[in-house]
Every structure is written in C-alpha cells, then in structure tokens.
C-alpha cells in the first residue's frame, strides 16, 4: 500500500495501510508515544472504493484480514475514524487470544472497573471522567480478558468521544491532545482524544477485575446489584468473540462473573456517576 503505519495498543499490534497520506499522518501524530509491534496481529486497509475514488470524491472502504461486507464506506475527511473503526473491527472479528468485552475500563491499585452498556450509555465519557480523577484509563472500546489468568489487559486506543461527551471530556481534561472534530459522521460528531501518559505508559500492565458496572445515562441516580447469572448473559451479548472462542470463552466468562461483583448504575450526569462509582469502590 502507498502509505503505512504500525502501532501496538496494549497487547495488540496493527499494520495500517492506506491509499491516502492524510489518515496515516493523523495516526502517526496521535499515536506518537505508542510503540511499534514486533509482529502486527492484524492488517487494516483503507482503500478507495473504486480506483478513481482515490481522487474524485474520495471514498474509503474498510478492509483487512477480516471483512464485514455491510460496513459502509466513509469520506476521506473521516479517515481517522475509518482507521479506528477498521482496527476495532479486525480485533472484534479476529481476536481469539482474549475474551473481548465491549466495555470501557479503568484501574486503581492493580484492580479494574469494567463498564459496559449499549452505545450512548456513557462508557467512554465515564472512563474519561474517572481518568481525570487519577484512575488509570485502560480502554473505552474493548476489555481484553485473558482466559488463562482472568486478568484484564488494557487496550487504550484513542478515545472516541461523541456529541455531548466531547465537551465533557474537554472540560475534564483541558490539557489533553485531541484529533480533528469529525462532524456529521454516522454517529454524529466525533472527536478523538489521546489517552494520558499514565494510560500509555502502563498499558502493558494487566489488572484484576474488581467491579463490573452497567451504566445507563439519563435516569435518576440509582445503584442496583446484578446477580452473576444476569451478568453472564449481559456479557455474552457484550462480547464479540464469546461464541468463536468456544470453551475458553465460556470458562473465562464464568470465572469473571463469579469472582466480580456487578451493579447497574443509572445516572443523570457525569458528576453523579463518578460519585456512584467511587462509592461502590469504597465498599469493595
């Protein structure tokens, strides 16, 4: 491919090739403090949907080792988003070493809080707000659970902030580095934020899962315990490779829900949610 860049995010290495220079330059800039992988686990391709679409109304098709035929092409202006989506897609479809949970994750004292919920539940924003209060940010897309050890590994790629979350994160982390504002994407406005030095510097240190949370934004504050059996079902749905991993995935998930207390958290705003999480943390 004409332009290429390799990066390691936590234990996962990516090789990204592109028909255009711009997305590669942006990745190189935003992932400046990340290491290169010895051997990339996945190859990602950002290619023109038709040969002429490299110049005329440039249109990016997400491709790579694993294909998702229905993934819609994106305009070149959203190249950074395309690269991030393509990397997530490769891991989601092809990752087998770790049980992948669609969750955000923060850590303190070697113990991790995993937060999972549907898009818009506030996973990313909540992780960002907690990181602003001294927690280590481990990721806002995937938590990687090692079936052998039960430990969760960090995947601190760029934080994908959406809509109202952008302003909330910028207020909480005025010192952070941000990517360009991508307006009018399929998910509204998106802006990427570079995880802080603690998140990147400690990304090779796994943590023991200590708390599972199911946040829901836009409700009166409430904290409800969730039984292990319900957690199990919720997490099978939050995992992209639970079925593909077979018995290893089942074992990892059983161990996780048995050993980790779980709570559903309804919250009206970020400050309330942070207070709820920290209150639960003190009870552990």
């Amino acid at each position: 491919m004409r332009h290429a860049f390799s990066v390691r995010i936590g234990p996962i290495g990516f090789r990204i090739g592109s028909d255009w220079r711009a997305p590669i330059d942006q990745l190189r800039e935003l992932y400046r403090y990340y290491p290169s992988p010895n051997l990339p686990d996945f190859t990602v391709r950002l290619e023109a949907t038709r040969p002429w679409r490299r110049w005329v109304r440039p249109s990016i098709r997400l491709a790579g080792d694993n294909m998702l035929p229905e993934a819609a092409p994106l305009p070149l202006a959203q190249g950074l988003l395309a690269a991030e989506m393509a990397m997530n897609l490769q891991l989601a479809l092809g990752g087998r070493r770790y049980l992948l949970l669609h969750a955000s994750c923060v850590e303190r004292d070697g113990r991790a809080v995993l937060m999972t919920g549907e898009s818009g539940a506030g996973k990313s924003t909540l992780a960002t707000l907690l990181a602003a209060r001294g927690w280590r940010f481990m990721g806002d897309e995937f938590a990687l659970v090692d079936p052998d050890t039960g430990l969760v590994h960090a995947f601190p790629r760029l934080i994908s902030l959406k809509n109202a979350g952008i302003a909330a994160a910028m207020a909480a982390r005025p010192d952070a580095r941000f990517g360009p504002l991508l307006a009018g994407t399929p998910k509204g406005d998106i802006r990427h934020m570079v995880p802080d030095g603690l998140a990147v510097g400690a990304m090779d240190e796994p943590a023991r899962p200590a708390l599972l949370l199911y946040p829901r934004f836009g409700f009166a504050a409430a904290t409800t315990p969730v039984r292990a059996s319900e957690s199990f079902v919720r997490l099978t749905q939050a995992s992209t490779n639970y079925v593909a991993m077979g018995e290893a995935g089942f074992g990892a998930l059983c161990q996780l829900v048995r050993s980790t207390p779980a709570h559903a958290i309804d919250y009206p705003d970020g400050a309330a949610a942070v207070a709820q999480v920290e209150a639960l943390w003190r009870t552990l």
Partner: protein
Amino acid sequence: MADALILARALADPQSLTLDTDWVGLITTARAELLLGTLAYRLDGLPLPEDVALLLADARAAAENGRRAALWEAEMARRALAPLDCPVLLLKGTAFVAAGLTAGRGRSIGDLDILVPRGSLDAVEAALLAAGWEWVKPDPYDDAYYRRWMHELPPLIHRERDRMIDVHHTILPPTARITPDAAALIADAQPLGNALSVPSPNDMLVHAAAHLLADGDLAGALRNLWDIHCLIEDHGIDGLAARARHHGLSREVDRALRLVRRLFGTPVPEMPARWADVLYLRRVLARDDWGRPIRPFTRLAFYIRSHWLRMPPAMLARHLWTKWRRA
C-alpha cells in the same frame, strides 16, 4: 510482483523458511486465503520467532474450535436426517476432519456440505426445515433456479446456530457439460460408523478437482489445491485416472495434478505442461502481501469462464438478462 507464492512455498516446505522471512506478508496472505490454521499446523514445532509462534498457536486454537463446531454441525444434521434412512455423505472440509485426513488439519470450514440421493431431496429438505433450518434466499427466481438447475438445494441456515448447510445431490450443476456419476459416489462411499459416510479417497479427489476447475471462478483455489495435495499424500493416486474417466473429469483431474505438482511438489508423475496452466497459476496466486486481490483481468477472465462452464450460452444469456433486470 509479490504474490501468494510465498504461502505455497511455506506450506509445501516449512523447513525452507528463514528467519528473515516476511512473516507479516506470509501471515496476511494465509489469512486472506483462509489458510492460516493450515499454515499454523504445518509450522508447528519448528523454531520460530516468539511473536510468530504465539500468533500461530492462536490460529491453531481457533482452527480446533472450528473443527469441533463443524463436527457438531454434522452431528446435528445426522440427527435430523436419521429417521429418513437415506445415505448421507459429508463433503469437503467436514469430510476431511470427520475422516481424520491430513487435509483437515487446521482447515477453515464454513458451511456444512452434504450429499444425498436426488430421490431423497424432498424428504431431506422437509426434515431439515422441521429441525430448525430456514431458507436463506427469499427470492423466488433464485429459489426456482436452484431447484431446477443446480446441483444443490438453495442454501439453508439454522435459525439458532446460524450455520449454513448445502444439500447436494451431485457434484456439478446439471447445466454443466460434464455429468459426474452421483450414484457411484454414493455406492462407493466409506461409512464413518455413525450412519454418515464420506466419498472414497478417489472420489474426494475427483470432487475437489471438479469443484476447483469445472465450477466457479477459482476463488479459494489455493486452499482447494492444498486439499488435493494432502489427499494425495494420504492415499496416493491408485485408480484415480480410471475414476476420473468414469465421472467424465479426466481433464480437470489431470490439470489439478499438474498444478499441485508445480505448486507443492506433490509426488505425482510428471505430465506434459499445457500452456494454460500458467494462467491458472497466475489466478491461484493472485494475492499480495497486504491480503489484496491482484491481477483484476485474470480474475475477470476466470469469472466469465465460470459462467460459461455452468450454462449453455442461450441459458446463460437468459439468466444474465433476468438478473440484470432485477438488479
């Protein structure tokens, strides 16, 4: 230009890999050709760079899960069809793993392919529908086309397990100019001991060659050729020529033997090369180290050829016209 030759060489002769191998290119190509699991088994036990060894161990674990899932799917079909008391043959990947053949080691297996006598098709379809399989293609033209002109039922998918089953009654479309002997395939099948069976070794080879060279556009050809190489390593080619003649597939089988000999050094007698073999190899290896399809004109030519093989010209014209009007 770099193509998938690096992968063919690695499969044929893993010892030939050196430390400065382009591992990224090799792994990416293997993944794109659905041969990463196979490669992982071929390289198992060799001294490899640590990251490579780790990645290939994952691929073996994934292939092992895939093998188990494929065998489970075969068992599900067996249970659904047991009351019918008709012969059920496993084909392709599922047959390789069920029979414990080298071709099954690490092989990626998508759909479940089975073959039943044409006279049992209706009963088989009814039994599968009753057991939770559903039609994939709601389009009436496609459905009718499959039923009238294809060597298989329209694909069915299981509503809970999300796995496809292809029910064949022969191994080439009835519209093709070659008519293999499906009854002989069933008569000579080898039982697995659980009411399922697999084609005899020579029929497996003939089917693989037919699938590769008399049907389709050579998508996944490298994997199919590797199957053929492994089948020959396991069983040799005694009686193959006569069996190929019987099914009307001598040309395809001969070509398959020439191609595997060229690509993998398979121990088969040398035959005089045909000029078109070069074109086939160009198509088989048309994949670069980023996993991209290359050689668009060669690919297009084989795509057109696949339609030409499948249908007489007037029928092809009618089919394309109908498809075009509906598109």
